[in-house]
């Protein structure tokens, strides 16, 4: 078992023939991911990386049965790509693109909400189920197969956490990069819930950062669920000043309730094993398992 993506996912790449799309699609294919084609408007009918290129997502759904997409489309056109994927009936839409205007994401999030699609991202590293499917830009070799699920807003910090977990002799079921933007599809709570409900996942690592209420919502859900599966948590940005955006558009302390300290307090109160040092994530996971 795994969540969101596995060896049977039929994956297409939107923005397939661009430089980012080409590079990362190549890496995904090399990893063994089931990439069935791609979409670049105006280049339909061509072949790229030995796979068919389609003009529209609906054509890709029709011809090769695509159910999952990964989006590398530039920021100005990315929200449109998300809506096109949802309209075509794609089930899992993973958006890597960073820098999408907030207004565009408000519209896209509203448009897709009743379409039965799950959006992951934007501004995220993607999702990986080790040994089955890498639908993202993460280095595949870091993620060894195992029993720990990871949810994170960040890219390299996810790799760091996975590396620490693997070095403890454990491995990963699925790692979900939910993204660092103010508006994202799958929330921390939804991602944690998916992993808690996955029988193969025996523990969850939840990595958040300053800004917003997602970690508090996830912590409250976890407490109410009564789950006995341990969750290890870390919040980045304890040393970040208020009112400044720290790289990720969503990483900004707006008030007293979205600081790292406030989030960690709620998480601890909800039974999450919070570490204060980012170097102790792996050790803590080994300890609670």
């Amino acid at each position: 078992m795994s969540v969101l993506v596995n060896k049977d996912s039929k994956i297409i790449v939107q923005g397939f023939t661009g430089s980012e799309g080409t590079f990362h699609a190549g890496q995904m294919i090399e990893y063994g991911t089931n990439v069935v084609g791609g979409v670049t408007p105006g280049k339909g009918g061509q072949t790229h990386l030995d796979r068919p290129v389609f003009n529209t997502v609906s054509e890709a759904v029709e011809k090769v049965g695509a159910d999952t997409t990964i989006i590398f489309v530039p920021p100005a056109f990315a929200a449109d790509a998300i809506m096109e994927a949802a309209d075509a009936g794609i089930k899992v839409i993973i958006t890597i693109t960073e820098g999408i205007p907030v207004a565009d994401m408000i519209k896209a999030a509203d448009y897709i909400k009743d379409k039965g699609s799950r959006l992951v991202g934007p501004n995220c590293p993607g999702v990986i189920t080790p040994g089955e499917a890498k639908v993202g830009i993460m280095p595949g070799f870091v993620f060894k197969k195992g029993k720990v699920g990871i949810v994170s807003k960040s890219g390299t910090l996810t790799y760091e956490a996975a590396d620490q977990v693997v070095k403890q002799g454990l491995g990963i079921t699925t790692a979900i990069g939910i993204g660092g933007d103010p508006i994202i599809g799958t929330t921390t709570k939804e991602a944690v819930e998916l992993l808690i409900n996955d029988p193969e996942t025996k523990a969850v690592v939840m990595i958040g950062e300053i800004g917003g209420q997602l970690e508090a919502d996830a912590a409250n859900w976890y407490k109410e669920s009564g789950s006995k599966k341990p969750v290890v948590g870390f919040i980045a940005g304890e040393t970040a000043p208020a009112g400044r955006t720290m790289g990720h558009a969503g990483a900004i302390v707006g008030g007293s309730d979205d600081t790292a300290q406030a989030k960690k307090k709620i998480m601890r109160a909800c039974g999450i094993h919070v570490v204060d040092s980012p170097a102790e994530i792996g050790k803590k996971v080994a300890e609670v398992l």
Partner: protein
Amino acid sequence: MNLHEYQGKELLNSFGVRIQRGIVAHSANEAVDAAKQLTAETGTSWHVIKAQVHAGGRGKGGGVKLAKNLQEVEEIAGNIIGMNLVTPQTSAEGKKVHQVLVAEDVYYPGDSEPEEYYMSVLLNRGVGRNMIMYSTEGGMDIEQVAEETPHLIFTEEIDPAVGILPFQARRVAFNLGLSGTAFKEMTKFVTALYTAYVKSDASLFEINPVLKTSDDKILAVDSKVTLDDNALYRHRDLAELRDLREENPIEVEAGSLGLNYVDLDGNVGCMVNGAGLAMATMDLIKHSGGEPANFLDVGGTADASRVEAAFKIILKDPNVKAILINIFGGIVRCDRVAQGVIDAYKNLGNINVPIIVRLQGTNADIAKELIDNSGLDVLSATEFQEAADKVQEVLS
């Protein structure tokens, strides 16, 4: 990106939001001319002189003053322009004032008492929609209102598919206790304000106070406008309003080099790939007994030229006593980053602070060997904790 009050007001006015009128001036003489022109246009006899800097609480620092005649306009403008304005939102040194807004007096007496309200438009991240937040308690610190009298703060969430609806604008006006002409004016004001917010791709509008004048007009007396940086590509005219004098010069320089840098007060500089890992590295520095001197995300391609640029930026800060480089190499290979660090170090020559380089991921072992054999005064590490221990070591 933040706008000055006068820029924000011009933006609002262009979308039909009524504003307290004013003219920006860069000298005492210009301020007098502006005051004369305003009197001719609006009939105002008094003028308000307001320092134009990117910081709230300007009144508390003496940056907003009433002038009752032209002599006072000249005097006050002369005093404010060039001063270092210290407000609760600036550093202790304050912010240099380059210009003032000479504005009409809108608190004139009349048939009814003037009333002040608070109004802002912003994203409600929890639901992914914009909302209008407003209160009868205008002119006050809204955080304080939220703490002491939360029942006096109202919100109106806007459905993105249809925008602000007439009944919502009416609800705002009713909740603010308005009737008659002022009621109608408020519905127009809030509708125009929301339209301006959406059309300009703003991420924050804060109007404090919104004023009901003694003759029942509704207008914006102040404006705080923040625009979505990611949407500036479709608002070239607004992008040009950026005032670099209001920003930290090192941050501006870093930005022009494609580095995401935030200046902090600590003693350990850091250079990291990825925003989340960069924040975590700052936190780790603190746990090792130091204080982070900066946030710096070098991005995905940490090659020699970027590493060198990042070194130069970090070393501009005289408080930096050590530098921690933390790169998790995924797609980017660690040995190439290591070579970049070595080349940059040699190019720069005199780096007088200890450097700890932690490289993890693709080819981390080759990278460590490169660093260790380089003959440079650089400590290498592969594990996060090891890097933390070395930071502690060099600080003690």
